[in-house]
């Protein structure tokens, strides 16, 4: 007799568990799209850094080669959401209202790192700035800012 499949653990509970254990990666791995992009993350010093591991499926221009702009946008948005979830005291999944990405230079075929910085934490909306970089943090490949709805619906 085969055992019934385990009941899926709601994302919010996974997050609470990941926070207790200090294991950021366990939470990320629960999100299929984060796995598809090859996202990993953890605290480096006081910062929560999200890393997109290089993979050929991320390429937008094979001739250079360069990362697809969409992958950088997704990484930046993910970094902001993870920052909000990790720092927030009350757990509500943030909903993206708007995101604006500035593409500063082409993304090389290497790992890319990103972090989000909350610039204003309001009762209903939160503003976040994000940056993504590769080998040299001083020369980001892309920056972004986003506004999230953070109230319970």
């Amino acid at each position, binding site marked *: 007799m085969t055992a019934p499949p385990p009941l899926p653990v709601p994302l919010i509970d996974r997050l609470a568990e990941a926070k207790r254990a200090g294991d950021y990666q366990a939470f990320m791995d629960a999100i299929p799209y984060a796995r598809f992009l090859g996202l990993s993350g953890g605290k480096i010093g006081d910062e929560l850094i999200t890393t997109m591991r290089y993979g050929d499926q991320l390429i937008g221009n094979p001739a250079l080669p360069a990362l697809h702009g*969409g992958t950088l946008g997704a990484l930046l948005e993910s970094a902001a959401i993870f920052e909000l979830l990790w720092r927030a005291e009350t757990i509500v999944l943030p909903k993206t209202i708007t*995101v604006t990405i500035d593409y500063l230079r082409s993304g090389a075929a290497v790992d890319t790192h990103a972090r989000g910085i909350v610039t204003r934490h309001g009762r209903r909306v939160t503003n976040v700035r994000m940056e993504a970089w590769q080998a040299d943090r001083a020369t980001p490949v892309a920056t972004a800012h986003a506004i999230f709805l953070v109230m319970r619906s």
Partner: protein
Amino acid sequence: MPADDERDQLRLELVRGFSANVPHNRALGMIIEDIRSQEAVFRLPYDAKLVGNPDTGVIHGGAITALLDGCSGAAVFAALDDLVPIATLDLRIDYLRPAEVGKEVVARATCYKMTRNVAFTRAVAYHDDPDDPIAHSVGTFMVSTKTGSSLK
């Protein structure tokens, strides 16, 4: 004029072939539905790997970002007389409502202004009705980056 029409068709076919072969477009499962002068329509079928919220099955905003970015770039290519390299300068996306679970997302992008150096795009992502969009975007693209270093 037939000669121009043929040249146009060839150019648009090149854009279609180029877009279809972008590795990340393929990895996401994007389908190039239509490329016409200054306009592109892409489809993104629903797939489990695109899910951003495993509780609901709703796809991740990043997948829609990639769809709108790729589709907007194709609209710029479709507006160019010669296929020169382009690079996204910026892209703003407004998320108007959540995507529905299990439904494909369609993106329709227009390059509404082309100057010597910069192209301007707008796009919507929707399920069935472009007048009831999931997301709306505007973008700017640098045109002919062959002398610069930030090719895309």
